[in-house]
């Protein structure tokens, strides 16, 4: 949590001013019993009404001054808390962008979302309260103690005894409940995750009539969360009664000691009243604090969760190169080389790719084919460094990809992912992903290459037609073509199409392949597909089987010597020949 304090930078002034004003206000409050004692000890016995009125006006003046201080304090506290949290959220979002696929896989989207939302909200709350109370409460407590000492040292020693006991209680309960609050937030992750799943999987859930079961699953988690909240609630609820009892014991001790001292003639009755008032003030302050401590405790638990994300670092190796060097390397066209590459997913029991070697020259079209789960997608995801190879090296333009910064590298590569995702906005905003200043001509060019020009032309708003979240307002095939167009904008020198034509009909697929072959920049192109028909015109085809490269060559070559390839081919054409 404390490591998050670096985001306070820029708010140091407010950070000091808020508690300071708060303290000033508390200081004024501490003066009140003194004034009252003066009223009791001087005003009443002498029946001095003028003095009494002056003293009471003084109280009102203190109140007014307190108000001013307090408003300033609240403003600075609110400003700091909100500004701090906005900065944390910004940094957290930026940091999440820098994590590699491996970390994203592990942490999970839902947990990232709760940390961005619920956890940061709680932190904002906590910072706001802490700033208001960080100095005020100890100040009031210790101030009351010091004031008590000025009245009578012996009687005041009870304060010195009670305050450490109170601190132990407060910190003990905090320490006990922080991990429990963390647990509650983890439960919240799960509840959020189930909510999301029920939104994304609504069709399947309804198709299988699983509504009831899903509700049941949700309720189970929801109940667990409520149970844990109640559990931690019970513990933190101890704070208030405990402090109350301890302080009242203090008051009893105080009055008794006071009585003994008065009896001995060392103290006046008014002094005992003043001492008692100070103790009451501590009580009021601590009861106020107790409610807030619960909040602060929660915030610390949440802060730790946020900090945990900041401590996740991209597992991709760091590199020194700049974007320019990538552009330079790609200028003459890109070639790709896999040198004894082995890749294993984290926590997986077996290699996903095993000892892969091949080279692809600039301008070459490489087909990648293989069975379900054979490692096709994993292979191409090593090129833009979505993952780093476990051993061996992937080289682009004779340079290890680990020497390229991931973002610059990806900017230079056109990737069409398997799952066609569009973002809310317009068609234009989706197409301009990689190249923000692309002209209309460039966009239409890309759309036409991706066989998407026709339907976009037919949209009333053309390039500015709205796209809803996830592209839900387009059919699967349309989405896929738009994602292809998105990759083509900016004429990348390296293209990766990861089974991205699966929702396209054959005619469109064929037209797309022809268009790709005619690209002016002559890119190095990786085509992943199930269909031999989509790949057979490729310059070279890589055949994967269970993570191993079992064949490499042209369609004809592979047909003659690669058993796996021939099986794939036969499975697609024999049956059709047979049924004809």
């Amino acid at each position, binding site marked *: 949590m404390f490591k998050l304090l670096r985001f306070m930078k820029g708010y140091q002034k407010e950070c000091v001013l808020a508690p300071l004003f708060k303290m000033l206000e508390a200081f004024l409050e501490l003066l009140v019993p003194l004034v009252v004692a003066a009223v009791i000890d001087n005003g009443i016995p002498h029946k001095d009404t003028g003095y009494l009125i002056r003293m009471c006006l003084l109280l009102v003046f203190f*109140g007014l001054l*307190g108000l001013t201080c307090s408003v300033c304090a609240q403003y600075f506290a609110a400003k700091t808390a909100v500004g701090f949290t906005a900065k944390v959220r910004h940094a957290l979002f930026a940091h999440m*962008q820098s994590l590699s696929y491996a970390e994203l896989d592990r942490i999970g989207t839902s947990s990232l979302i709760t940390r961005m939302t619920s956890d940061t909200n709680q932190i904002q709350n906590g910072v706001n309260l802490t700033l208001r109370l960080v100095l005020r409460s100890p100040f009031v407590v210790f101030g009351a103690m010091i004031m008590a000492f000025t009245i009578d040292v012996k009687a005041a020693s009870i304060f010195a005894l009670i305050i450490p006991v109170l601190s132990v209680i407060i910190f003990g309960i905090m320490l006990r409940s922080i991990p429990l609050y963390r647990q509650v937030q983890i439960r919240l992750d799960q509840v959020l995750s189930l909510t999301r799943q029920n939104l994304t999987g609504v*069709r399947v859930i309804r198709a299988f009539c699983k509504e009831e079961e899903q509700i049941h699953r949700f309720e189970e988690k*929801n109940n667990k969360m409520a149970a844990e909240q109640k559990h931690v609630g019970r513990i933190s609820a101890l704070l208030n*009664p405990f402090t109350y009892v301890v302080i009242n014991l203090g008051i009893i001790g105080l009055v008794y000691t006071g009585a003994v001292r008065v009896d001995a003639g060392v103290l006046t009755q008014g002094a005992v009243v003043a001492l008692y008032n100070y103790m009451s003030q501590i009580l009021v302050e601590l009861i106020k604090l107790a409610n807030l401590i619960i909040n602060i405790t929660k915030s610390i638990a949440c802060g730790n969760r946020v900090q945990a994300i900041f401590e996740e670092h991209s597992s991709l190796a760091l590199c020194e190169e700049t974007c320019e060097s990538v552009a330079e390397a790609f200028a003459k066209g890109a070639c790709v080389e896999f040198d004894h590459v082995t890749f294993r997913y984290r926590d997986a029991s077996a290699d996903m790719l095993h000892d892969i070697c091949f080279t692809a020259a600039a301008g070459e079209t490489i087909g990648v084919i293989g069975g379900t789960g054979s490692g096709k997608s994993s292979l191409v995801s090593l090129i833009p460094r979505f993952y780093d190879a476990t051993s061996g090296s992937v080289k682009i333009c004779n340079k290890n990809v680990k020497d390229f910064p991931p973002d*610059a590298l990806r900017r230079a590569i056109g990737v069409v992912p398997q799952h066609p995702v569009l973002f809310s906005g317009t068609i234009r905003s989706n197409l301009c992903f990689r190249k923000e200043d692309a002209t209309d001509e460039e966009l239409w060019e890309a759309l036409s290459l991706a066989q998407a020009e026709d339907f976009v032309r037919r949209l009333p708003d053309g390039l500015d037609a709205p796209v809803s979240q996830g592209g839900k307002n387009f059919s699967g095939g349309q989405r896929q073509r738009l994602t292809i167009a998105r990759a083509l904008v900016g004429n990348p020198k390296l293209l990766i199409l990861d089974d991205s034509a699966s929702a396209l009909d054959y*005619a469109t*697929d064929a037209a797309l392949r022809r268009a790709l072959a005619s690209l002016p920049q002559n890119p190095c192109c990786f085509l992943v597909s199930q269909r031999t028909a989509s790949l057979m015109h490729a310059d070279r085809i890589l055949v994967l089987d269970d993570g191993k490269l079992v064949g490499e060559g042209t369609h004809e070559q592979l047909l003659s010597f690669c058993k796996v390839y021939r099986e794939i081919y036969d499975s*697609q054409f024999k049956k059709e020949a047979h049924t004809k």
Partner: protein
Amino acid sequence: MNRETIKRVLNYLGSYRRYLAFSLLLAAVSVALTLYVPIRVGQAIDTILGKGNVDFSALFFHLAVAGGCALCAALLQWLMAVINNKITYEVVRDIRSDAMKHIQKLPLSYLDSHAYGDIVSRVIADVDQFADGLLMGFTNLFTGVITILGTLVFMLLLDPLITLVVVLLTPLSLFVARFIANHTYEMFRAQSVTRGQQTAVIEEMIGNQRVVQAFAYEKKALAVFDEVNDRLAKCSLQATFYSSLVNPTTRFVNSTVYAAVALAGAFAAIGGSITIGGLSCFLSYAGQYAKPFNEISGVVAELQNALACAARMFDFLDSTAQTPDDPDAAVLQTVAGNVELSQVSFSYKPEQSLIENLNLQVEAGRRIAIVGPTGCGKTTLINLLMRFYDTVQGDIRIDGHSVRNVTRASLRKNFGMVLQETWLMQGTIRENIVMGKPDATEEEMIAAAKASHAHSFILRLPKGYDTVLSENGDELSQGQKQLLCITRVMLCLPPMLILDEATSSIDTRTEIKIQDAFSRMMKGRTSFIVAHRLSTIRDADRILVMKDGHIVEQGTHQELLEQNGFYKHLYESQFAPVASGQTR
């Protein structure tokens, strides 16, 4: 609006009536005790008169009573807090459960057109804020009100005149609090709405982080995020600052009251109508009396936030659910599979009609292939068959029963559906497979997995069938996910099948292998198949050629080719490359 929300909240609280009453009782007793303690302490102080003039036995007695009362009060306070916790967290749990139940009942048209992030934000963040407000409300409002009433009684007993001063002046603070709180509700609402928008952005960007990174779109994503983040910071600052003004202002009002009491009390003491001990006790009451006003006013601000969040939540709960099943809707038993569409019209948006006047008759056991260019309405047809959407006009009948007259659940149980977009739930492979038939035996499950050729890859996973899949099943390849979805249907074998590009991500060797199982499965079952692969289409009993929401041609493959129409054109353009492939 505000009142409506409060009423809804009270409704939820209704089932905890007994706990609420108990909590109130505890509050009353513990407050009475906490108020009684200073009286005893005051009396104890009154025994201390001066040097050599202290009545120690009376002192001990008063202090012992005070101590006992303090202990009891503490115990009751704790009990009350436990009960308040229970009520709050259980009410919140109930609201969330209701939200989940509501999600299950929402029409797909709602879910398809709303950002998931905003819904998630309502169910998670808004409810959370509401819980915080509610708990704070309970803890402070109850004790606050009772403290005010209690102190009034005790003060009246001590000195009616000074009490009058207090009573007349203190409500001032409530006016001030109310004035400020009224202004903050809108600010809290704005904060909550912006928070929802931010969650939608987070959901979209973080949820699709892979794509964002693939396009090095991080900076732009951050810019989009920052825009909302800045707006949120502004709303938040406003709401936080203005709501936090309540406390200092009421405190100022109260310190003025305190000064007035001190003055009145001092005069009373001069006049001899109150003792010094009595005055100190009175002043402590005045402080205590003011305190709940401070707290309540703070709570009022907090409650504005809670109410703004609750309103958003109820807003969601109030969104129109799909028309519920007719109360006397029949339960569709296992059907033969005759499907009839008559005069069906449908559109997603009223101004843009998609399907018009569609008629179709399918006899039981037939295999129907649907082809046509993208966006022609293939998926929509499936949405209508499964009753994800209701037809705008016309009727769909299964074995003569109109789909509107049977329960949705029984209708959908008769369909087995495999979609191109695979969805797996978080859980084990086993749980995912037996979704449609929870009572399936191990043998049945393995048989289904073998038929769909998923068995071998499942066995290769670290824990076989008990491997836990993460949220999106990201550890599996797209094809493997599709195999699992097919296994799911193979296991429950309903009388009608819908396969929307069911094998698009599966390699063709495996596809051929499962094709036999598919053929066996489809035998005797009415099947609707959307596919691009020729083999599936040509084996169909009937091919529907769709274009712009209409069936333009239908018949067997051979018949359609002979018609020399749109299908022939489609066939030649689409399948020509394949046909030429086989001549090699």
